[in-house]
């Protein structure tokens, strides 16, 4: 046996004590064959296609969990951005497509299905507009459907009209679910440089360049990384910290690679990517904030936080890139507030502000994620926050996003509670000096010089 008992026990303890898991096995499905001029027929085709193709997803993932001893927390589905098939019909109401996706997700036993989406970074098409306008109702009337809109790319610049429109949609989605702590907004994300193979929600879509069906896997393991960092001597230098994170990331990624290959083989579909994002959960110890504090920040949000996060994110990628040749998706640490007990603690302690989170998103993945703000925040202010995050993504050729929850009827310090993996979030303060005039100018923020690469 060339595996040592120490390595076996290390793996077992990673799972049992440090919450090692595969965060998601996501089946990407093309809905291109479902397009139909009749909305009812199209909705039926969507339901049938998803339930047929994803029928074995959950049983296969559960068997892999059992046989390999690595928990798979979520089994999910991403589909073709729905606006691209909605274009086949002239029906003004596209909500039936969301309802069909919701029923299909329920039928096959996945907790979320992503792709009620549109890409409008250069302009809003007629079908895009129908999908965007339907989002508040679609998200309020479904449990498992997630929506996303790409409003900016490095190649195209930023669609400022789309950003303002999305700010209004976010407010409407929040208001439509005011009785449930505005949960609809937690299922809606606005992107710059959206990727086509993201396995994580709420932003997962099955992009145009993908095969008909594909398995994408998102790794996890903040608890494992924290334990490794915490075990280092307090005077270990940052090279040693980076080295320890890198070695751990390799192991976590290998587990992801194995699960991805095995799930693809058992389902008879292509293996897509392994997403190297460290993803926290509300569970104690499963926190990215805790890693940053183990590295040496007194409380997340304090000076030094961006440095620690940059180090973490870079070391995870270096280890992960050795672990798989199929790196993809977002591949950057997630810093959602509501899903990370350490982030919530930092907000409550007054250490973590919206502005610091924005700075942090310049060195990691999805930036302003799962952040509750007062329900009476003006639409221009929400738009300006989204625009700032997008500007970071566009100029730096990286993905950034905003998932803001303007919690209806709530004020700073109140708590919103979503339950499950979406967690709970204290309502954060918003800087009142927003660029309202800027956001009302509209038009397109031109593509940056750095986009001219050919």
């Amino acid at each position, binding site marked *: *046996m*060339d*595996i*040592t*008992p*120490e*390595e*076996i*026990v290390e*793996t*077992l*303890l990673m799972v049992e004590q440090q919450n090692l898991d595969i965060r998601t096995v996501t089946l990407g499905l093309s809905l291109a064959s479902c397009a139909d001029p009749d909305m009812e027929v199209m909705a039926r085709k969507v339901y049938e296609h998803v339930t047929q193709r994803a029928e074995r997803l959950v049983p296969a993932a559960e068997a892999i969990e*059992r*046989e*390999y*001893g*690595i928990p798979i927390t979520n089994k999910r589905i991403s589909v073709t951005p729905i606006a691209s098939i909605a274009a086949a019909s002239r029906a003004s109401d596209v909500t039936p497509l969301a309802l069909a996706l919701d029923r299909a997700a329920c039928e096959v036993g996945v907790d979320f299905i992503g792709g009620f989406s549109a890409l409008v970074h250069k302009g809003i098409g007629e079908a895009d507009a129908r999908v965007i306008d339907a989002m508040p109702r679609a998200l309020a009337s479904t449990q498992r459907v997630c929506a996303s809109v790409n409003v900016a790319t490095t190649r195209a610049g930023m669609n400022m009209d789309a950003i303002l429109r999305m700010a209004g949609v976010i407010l409407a989605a929040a208001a439509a679910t005011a009785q449930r702590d505005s949960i609809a907004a937690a299922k809606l994300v606005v992107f710059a440089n959206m990727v086509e193979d993201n396995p994580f929600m709420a932003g997962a879509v099955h992009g145009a360049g993908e095969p008909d069906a594909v398995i994408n896997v998102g790794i996890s393991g903040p608890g494992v990384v924290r334990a490794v960092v915490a075990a280092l001597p307090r005077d270990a230098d940052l090279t040693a910290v980076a080295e320890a994170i890198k070695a751990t990331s390799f*192991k976590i990624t*290998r*587990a992801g*690679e*194995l699960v991805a290959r095995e799930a693809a083989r058992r389902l008879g579909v292509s293996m897509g990517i392994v997403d190297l994002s460290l993803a926290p959960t509300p569970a104690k110890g499963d926190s990215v904030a805790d890693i940053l504090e183990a590295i040496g920040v007194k409380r997340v949000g304090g000076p030094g936080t961006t440095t620690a996060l940059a180090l973490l994110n870079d070391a995870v990628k270096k280890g992960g890139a*050795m672990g798989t040749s199929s790196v993809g998706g977002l591949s950057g640490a997630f810093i959602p507030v509501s899903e990370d007990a350490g982030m919530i603690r930092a907000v409550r302690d007054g250490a973590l502000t919206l502005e610091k989170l924005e700075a942090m998103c310049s060195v990691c993945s999805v930036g302003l994620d799962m952040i509750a703000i007062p329900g009476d925040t003006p639409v221009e202010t929400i738009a300006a926050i989204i625009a700032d995050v997008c500007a970071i993504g566009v100029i730096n050729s990286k993905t950034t996003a905003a998932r803001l929850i303007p919690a209806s009827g709530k004020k700073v310090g109140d708590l919103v509670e979503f339950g499950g993996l979406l967690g709970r979030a204290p309502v954060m303060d918003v800087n009142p000096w927003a660029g309202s005039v800027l956001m009302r100018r509209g038009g397109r923020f031109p593509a940056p010089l750095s986009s001219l690469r050919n």
Partner: protein
Amino acid sequence: MQTRAIVSVLGDDRVGIVAAVATSLAERGANIEDIRQSIVGGLFSMTMLATFDEDATPFESVQRALTEVGERLGVQVTLQREDVFRYMHRI
């Protein structure tokens, strides 16, 4: 095709652990190719490399039998496909 799987036992040391696990494996036609025992982090740890024919004995049935042995003895017994360890600990 012989399946290679790792049996691991974690918990307090006591009489009869090896015998019970080995008997359960033998009853299902599984061969023990290697066995090691150590104390890791204060825990008694025994690991075995077992091979068996999945056409004759499904993975799940071996796994279930070993879990029952663990419950009877008050220790944790797990069976995992060997690949997961090779993937995570070898380049």
